[in-house]
């Protein structure tokens, strides 16, 4: 079923006529079946017609539903076990014929599972049929899913199923379906505590050995490598989340201004290693040193990213309920995360308990009262001024050097050994196969992981960089990915000791703003945002950024320059829309408007999702002209945006876009060089 070229069918009139006749017959049959369905006719003939229809087209879910209704009806009125069994058997036959037509029909497979739930069928026969299917098409994922389903209801032991996967893998180790099934079964064993922890390590070691056979036999086959990734994720990378950082850092103060919109009032932030849910006032306890004040606060935790459920960053919004707080007051909050269960990622609950003490000082923040007159800022790039920075980095980050959170637990002996083993294995393979891209990629990933997790960072990033540079030569198809990884490493190297040098810091003469500048670095991907929390002015101009993913972590950003990059759509700015304090945004000389949607993302939230609709309702009145949905969705959320420099993008010439933009962002004062304030 793999690697077979599609046969293009030529269209000749005779054939077309034949097809038309067939279609007419099909239509007639369909009408008849729907008629039967509507009038609840469950006669033998009606069921036969339905079966015929499904054999012609198994994708008709209505027809399957009709069968379900009919079978339920027939079984209800029938007590004779033999007849009940024959009804069910007949259903299986119908499904079988439908599957012969298209054995990837979801409806048919679903019907089969439904029928089996009556418990009247011979499961051995199911296994035999399935075996035939998986012999002829070993990578049919429906077949594999059905096999797991059968194993579930037939109480087949995991051991038997594991044996089956190994049989299939032995037949053809390129069969990722078999590997995947194996990983599923093993995970299930672990979850159900069938395997003890010690045995589990032994099992994993054996699996490492098995998968090694695959990539030494054929280093270019990806199935084994994917399985290895899964194994590594079971070994080192915690599937359980942990806290990577807080804002403000432990023991530091933050300003709380009760008079500004809660969103713009950043108070307490928690960052996690993986997207988590369940962050709320229950799971994060807060107690104040001054007892009486506790009740005055209403705390709500808001995700700072797109996903309101699972997020890597959570922000506490404090509301002063009784309006009794006064400027100049100060209170100390003890925050405790993880003491009560409830915070979990998609893979497991939070690791560890974290305590944090924060001082909240009450006062007026700069953005408390929107300035009537916002003077346009000059971007660092536009200044003639040479680099100059005589301040302390603390001024930039709002605190003395931010302690970076590493992985909480050091690697166990076994973990470290396994990781080292795999690094050595990859090196061994690379010695034999200098150009094996999978070996290079895996080695690079392993070294990065080792660097992050191991207590002693003995592997330099230089080797990783060399590997990715080799990969760029060997496998140019995936150059974007490799460049992104190189960019991440560069970014890592720049930011790891950011506090130590002033190379990337800059003070503007005009506004006295302190900037962090990462311009002209060919960056294509950003990361390590937890190291930059607290930065207010960031210059990322003249890079190769296609995406701003993750920048929403920088909740304190006021001015952001991403001019001269490769952003291609408005939707690529989505992360920016989660920055509550952003006042000036420079997106000049990008490629915005080239694509309607951000092609760098795999999933596109529909333009008609709730937030978009809400904005549309509010803002879309009787305005004429075409509507740029994404403008409302993205810019509509930037409540304090004053300055937008958008010149030099395909979309900036578009009049409709401009008018939509002005509607969406009423706070805007400067659009490029033009003052657009309504006053």
């Amino acid at each position, binding site marked *: 079923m793999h690697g077979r070229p599609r046969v293009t069918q030529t269209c000749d009139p005779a054939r077309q006529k034949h097809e038309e006749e067939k279609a007419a017959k099909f239509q007639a049959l369909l009408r008849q079946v729907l008629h039967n369905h509507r009038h609840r006719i469950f006669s033998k003939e009606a069921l036969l017609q339905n079966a015929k229809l499904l054999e012609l087209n198994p994708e008709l879910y209505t027809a399957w539903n009709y069968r379900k209704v009919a079978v339920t009806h027939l079984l209800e009125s029938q007590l004779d076990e033999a007849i009940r069994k024959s009804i069910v058997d007949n259903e299986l036959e119908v499904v*079988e014929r439908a*599957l*012969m037509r298209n*054995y990837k029909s979801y409806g048919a497979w679903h019907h089969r599972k439904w029928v089996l739930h009556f418990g009247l069928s011979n499961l051995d026969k199911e296994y035999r*049929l*399935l075996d*035939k*299917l998986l*012999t*002829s098409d070993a990578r049919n994922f429906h*077949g594999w899913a059905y096999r797991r389903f059968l194993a579930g209801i037939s109480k087949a032991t995991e051991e038997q199923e594991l044996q089956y996967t190994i049989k299939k893998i*032995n*037949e*053809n*180790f390129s069969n990722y379906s078999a590997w995947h099934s194996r990983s599923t079964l093993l995970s299930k064993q672990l979850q159900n505590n069938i395997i003890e922890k010690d045995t589990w390590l032994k099992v994993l070691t054996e699996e490492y050995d098995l998968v*090694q*056979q*695959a990539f*030494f*036999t*054929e*280093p270019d086959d990806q199935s084994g490598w994917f399985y290895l990734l899964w194994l590594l994720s079971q070994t080192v990378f915690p599937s359980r989340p942990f806290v990577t950082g807080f804002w403000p850092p432990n023991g530091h103060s933050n300003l709380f201004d009760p008079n500004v919109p809660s969103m713009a009032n950043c108070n307490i932030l928690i960052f996690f290693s993986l997207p988590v849910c369940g962050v709320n006032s229950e799971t994060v306890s807060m107690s104040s040193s001054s007892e009486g004040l506790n009740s005055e606060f209403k705390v709500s935790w808001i995700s700072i990213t797109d996903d309101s459920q699972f997020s890597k960053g959570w922000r506490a919004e404090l509301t002063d309920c009784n309006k009794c707080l006064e400027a100049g007051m100060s209170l100390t909050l003890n925050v405790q995360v993880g003491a009560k269960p409830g915070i979990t990622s998609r893979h497991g609950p939070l690791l560890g308990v974290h305590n944090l003490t924060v001082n909240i000082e009450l006062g007026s923040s700069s953005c408390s009262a929107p300035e009537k007159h916002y003077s346009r800022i000059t971007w660092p790039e536009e200044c003639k001024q040479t680099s100059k920075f005589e301040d302390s980095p603390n001024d930039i980050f709002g605190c003395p050097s931010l302690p970076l959170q590493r992985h909480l637990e050091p690697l166990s002996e076994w973990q470290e050994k396994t990781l080292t083993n795999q690094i050595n*294995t990859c090196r*061994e*393979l690379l010695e*034999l*196969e200098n150009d094996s891209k999978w070996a290079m990629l895996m080695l690079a990933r392993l070294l990065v992981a080792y660097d992050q997790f191991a207590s002693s960072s003995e592997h330099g990033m230089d080797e990783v960089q060399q590997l990715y540079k080799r990969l760029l030569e060997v496998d140019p198809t995936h150059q974007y990915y490799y460049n992104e990884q190189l960019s991440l490493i560069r970014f890592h190297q720049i930011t790891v000791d950011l506090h130590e040098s002033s190379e990337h810091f800059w003070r503007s003469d005009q506004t006295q703003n302190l900037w962090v500048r990462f311009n002209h670095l060919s960056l294509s991907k950003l990361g390590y945002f937890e190291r930059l929390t607290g930065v207010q002015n960031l210059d990322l101009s003249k890079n190769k950024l296609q995406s701003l993913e993750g920048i929403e972590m920088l909740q304190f950003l006021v001015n952001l320059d991403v001019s001269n990059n490769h952003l291609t759509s408005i939707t690529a700015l989505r992360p920016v829309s989660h920055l509550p304090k952003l006042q000036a945004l420079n997106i000049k000389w990008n490629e915005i408007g080239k694509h309607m949607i951000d092609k760098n993302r795999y999933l596109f939230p529909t333009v008609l999702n709730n937030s978009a609709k809400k904005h549309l309702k509010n803002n879309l009145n009787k305005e004429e002209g075409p509507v740029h949905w994404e403008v409302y969705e993205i810019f509509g959320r930037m409540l304090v945006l004053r300055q937008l420099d958008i010149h030099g993008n395909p979309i900036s010439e578009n009049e409709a876009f401009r008018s939509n933009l002005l509607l969406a962002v009423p706070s805007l004062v400067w659009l490029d060089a033009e003052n657009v304030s309504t006053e």
Partner: protein
Amino acid sequence: MANLIEPSSFDLIVVGTGLPQCIVAAAAASNGHSVLHLDACDFYGSHWSSLPLQDFSDWCHSAGQLPFPSPIQITTPSNVSGTGASEVSNQNVSPSFERDTAAGEMVFQNGALPNNGSMPSSREFGDSFPENSTNGTTHSFAETSLYGSATTANASLQNGFLSPEPVTHTEEIVLNTNNLSLHDSTMEELGLQSEVVEERSSMYQDFHIMQDSIEDLGPSRRYCLDLAGPKLAYCGGSLVDLLLRSGANNYLEFKSLEASFMWSNGVLLPVPSSRADVFKDRTLINAEKRHLMRFFKLVVEHDSSNPDAPQISPEELESPFVKFLHERQVPLSVQSMILYAIALSNHKQGTVEEGGSHIMKTKEGLELLALYLSSVGRFVNSTGAFLYPLYGQGELPQAFSRSAAVKGALYALKMPIQSFLKDKVTGDFKGIKVSTTEQLIFSQKLVVGPTMLQTVCKAFNSDVLSVEGRNAAQESGEEKEAPKVVRGICITDKSLRADLCTLMVVFPPHCVTVQENGVIRALQLGSSVSVCPEGKFLVQLSMVCSNESVGIEALQRATQFLFNSRDSSSTADAEKPTLLWAAFYAHNEIYEGGADVLILCKWILAGHVAAFGMPDETLHFQKAVASAENVYKGLFPDDDFFPRPPLSPTTTTDDFVMDDMVEENEHLV
């Protein structure tokens, strides 16, 4: 006598139905030449046939005489005796007629195997036949059962030579005289002289039969025992290619060899031949796997037209293959597997220093390996590189005969020839004289089998070796000593591996005997390929050796390694199958001289007469096909050897019918 062959002149006469002869006949017929194909036996295949157990046992007891008496007593089909000539004449079987499949079917139903119910009853072929004719009924030709004979009857009738009344022997002679066929005077007039054919009675020697009784082995006819076993076809080899090109594949079904093993100190080690095997094999360490896979890749790629493909220097190609394997870091344990179980070398491949007369060159080894690897997975349903035909090897010559018959070749079994006709002045071949009817049949070209090889030599001794053959012989320097092949066949009660049915075991040199350098191969076949009853297994063995008795001893020792003997139940290893019956024998003179390709076709005389030798010593059919092609090119230099039919988009080579494929469609979810 009724059954004269008509017409009396053909483009090509082929005598003996061995596989290469049948291929030549089919090739000639497909190119539109008129072909007469005769065999003195009453079954197809000559030395390439598969026999029922009783026949095989008889054959052994007669020290390998072909033709041997048909063991089955059959009464003459009732409708035959009363057949009037007029009824026969209704059959449209003249060679000039286009034959439909039904006609072809008829031929093969009758000729399929000697045990077929419609076969003639005559036990003593040479004698009974004339007797029948003297009895004067027209049914005698029907007894010969063949197409060609029936045709003859019809054709003769049309020509008015066949009397509807019973005729006497004398009358027949008179008739024949009129037909300018018999009298010396006629020969004289035509400027011909005859050379009496002296066929060698047996091509085999040194028969050893263990366990005489075949009583308790089940029905004899459920067995198909190959005379020239073991042989297997490469999925990507020239035989399969020819089957597809000639259409003969329509008459055959195959099963693939499930696994190969290497005998190593009493253990059967699986031979890694595919990536799945390499993956599974835990005896190889990481680096070895990589070297082995790289080597396989090199083999597949080096011959391709891809300019980036790895290059192998000409010197390397001429160097010994074993040295090459060593240099390419092929794991030591796998080297002998590659040499003996994949490249299928029959001789010990030592280093150059050790010497040896049959060192495989790198070029040769790579070609065989490439063939092997391209064979693995050529057909969706086949698991390995090799195929075996259902009902035995003897099906192959039949399939080619059938394809020849469909394209107009005339077939006659039980038709021995008495003498060759040759031009008195030039000595050139002019035709043959059939023993039974003494009819003269004319042709410029003749192909015979190994039993007539010497007669052909003697009769046309003006130019013995073909040009190609002689050159090759000269190149190789001294004449090599002719190697001999010993073969054996065993019947056992269970499989060597419980989970497998068809498998091969390779004994590398010196692990059974140190007196010989040959490789012993044992091919186990079972009821899945319909060559024995269920619950029984056939194991065919072969070895190339210099001394027959040592060779046969080695084969016997190999069977002792593999099986328990029937009587030694006390020392029996419960795991091993028990040997129920066995026979061992040696081929006489497979070939002389050193020409490799022409091992089977020994002489092509001025493009007119060719003779094929005995089935060769290799496990595969590559040499047999190559020699058939060579002979054909010698006989008909202007022809294409089975022109490829234009590829239509709907038919691909994957249409090749395999038994599994049929099964698969039965009940697919």
